[in-house]
């Protein structure tokens, strides 16, 4: 619980990330509340992606990345108390470019559960339908689940990737600029699914598109040069930011 009495899903304390000599993120403290959509905005190299990738320990895959500080998921230390694999099942991630694996639509969705040891075909089939429904893709692909996941349109691919993440039944979903390559219609569908998912998940959205942050975020944080300048309710950030730099970024003076 935080001071406002909300349930804290992710608690970040003193998080710092660096690559070789370059520092990407300096000592960040932040609580992410259960059931919110936290939008993170900021120019490139502001540390927002490094932050996102620390939350599911994807940073560790970078050969020169060094991470320090603590992150608690429901009070559990994500580095010391659970394995990276089980963490990533609870914190799903959507990438900027949709990357369906070179498998069928069905196998793309069941990939995570199968790796976790789920074998039963009926369970897997149910998961496929449920996840595709939640990602607003079921009606478009239900008759061709055995088609390659790489042969559908870009917008459909991104929703397939969302469905694939949902099949893990995660608590938290991280979005890394999920609509940067999509047309407005597909973007609207992705955003619609985010608002729906918010009812049962905690969402963290990194975006270069400030309008998108304004449309979906319950709260918005502004990152600049490895530091969090400001965080607050989305409406406040966009109408009355406390910091001059936030205002400059939002009105488009840099970035």
């Amino acid at each position: 619980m935080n001071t406002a009495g909300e349930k804290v899903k992710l608690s970040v304390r003193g998080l710092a990330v660096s690559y070789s000599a370059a520092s990407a993120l300096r000592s960040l403290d932040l609580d992410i509340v259960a059931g919110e959509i936290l939008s993170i905005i900021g120019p490139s190299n502001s540390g927002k992606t490094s932050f996102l990738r620390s939350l599911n320990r994807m940073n560790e895959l970078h050969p020169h990345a060094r991470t320090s500080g603590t992150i608690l998921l429901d009070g559990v230390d994500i580095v010391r108390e659970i394995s990276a694999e089980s963490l990533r099942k609870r914190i799903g991630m959507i990438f900027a470019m949709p990357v369906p694996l070179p498998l069928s639509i069905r196998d793309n969705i069941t990939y995570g559960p199968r790796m976790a040891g789920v074998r039963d075909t009926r369970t897997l089939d149910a998961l496929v339908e449920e996840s595709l429904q939640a990602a607003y893709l079921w009606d478009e692909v239900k008759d061709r689940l055995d088609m390659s996941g790489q042969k559908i349109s870009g917008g459909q691919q991104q929703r397939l990737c969302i469905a694939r993440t949902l099949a893990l039944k995660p608590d938290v979903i991280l979005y890394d600029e999920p609509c940067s390559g999509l047309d407005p219609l597909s973007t609207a569908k992705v955003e619609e699914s985010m608002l729906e998912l918010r009812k049962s998940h905690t969402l963290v959205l990194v975006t270069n598109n400030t309008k998108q942050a304004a449309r979906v975020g319950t709260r918005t944080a502004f990152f600049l040069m490895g530091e969090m300048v400001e965080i607050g309710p989305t409406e406040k950030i966009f109408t009355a930011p406390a910091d001059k730099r936030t205002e400059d970024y939002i009105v488009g003076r840099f970035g």
Partner: protein
Amino acid sequence: MKREDKRQNIGFGALLAATLLVVIPVLAIVVLIVAKGWGALSWEFLFSMPRDGMRAGGIFPAIVGTIYLVFISLIFALPIGVMAAIYLSEYAKDNALTRVINLAIINLAGVSSVVFGLFGLSLFVVFLKFGVSIISGALTLGIMTLPVIITTTREALRSVPASYREVSFSLGASRWQTVRHAVLPRALSGILTGAILSVGRVAGETAPILFTVAAFYLPNLPTGLSDQAMALPYHLYVITTQIPGIPESFRYGTALVLIGFVLVMNIIATVIRSKAGKKR
């Protein structure tokens, strides 16, 4: 400007001449062997035992011996080579150990083939007491072919997009699961290419088998791994330099079978590679 153009024409002409000097003999070699060896090919030549001190009959035992050597060396070298490539491409960090491994691979590829023969003699034949046998020869050939398998497999693994690995990790897969399910299936054709190329290479090698397996002449086919065996390249060496009075067509016939096998393997590898290239 005119003079420069003239100079360019002369220069390019010289380059072309050099290239032709390389390429024409290659074509001549292939044409010569096919033309002179074709007549020797017959059912009897391919599938019967040699007679009259190898001046008549066929080369069947040499073909069988080479097939044995190729497959047993591959059974040994393919798993080790593929796993070594997986280690280098998917697991190894950029550190001193990795540099030492890469240096070792380069050296393994560069060591003289007759030195491999000595090594096989000393380690497998003498020290491990395998004797002059198929297993000694196949292991020697297997070690010699490791660099081919490792480098082609590593290239194949590296051509798999990094994003597949990221996605697999992000879905909670472990490193081995990622390699097994997201990376390896995409690299199969490249691995196959490497295996086939190494088969061609192994089939044609003579020096490594001289003291480890090769027999001048055997009246029977080998029955087990501890038997000696005849082999095509050694047979060609023997009938070319050691036995006078062998019909020339026999020599060309043997050379044709050997080169035919090696070239067919290379063509298959090229076809697989270009098919895989198109898919991407």
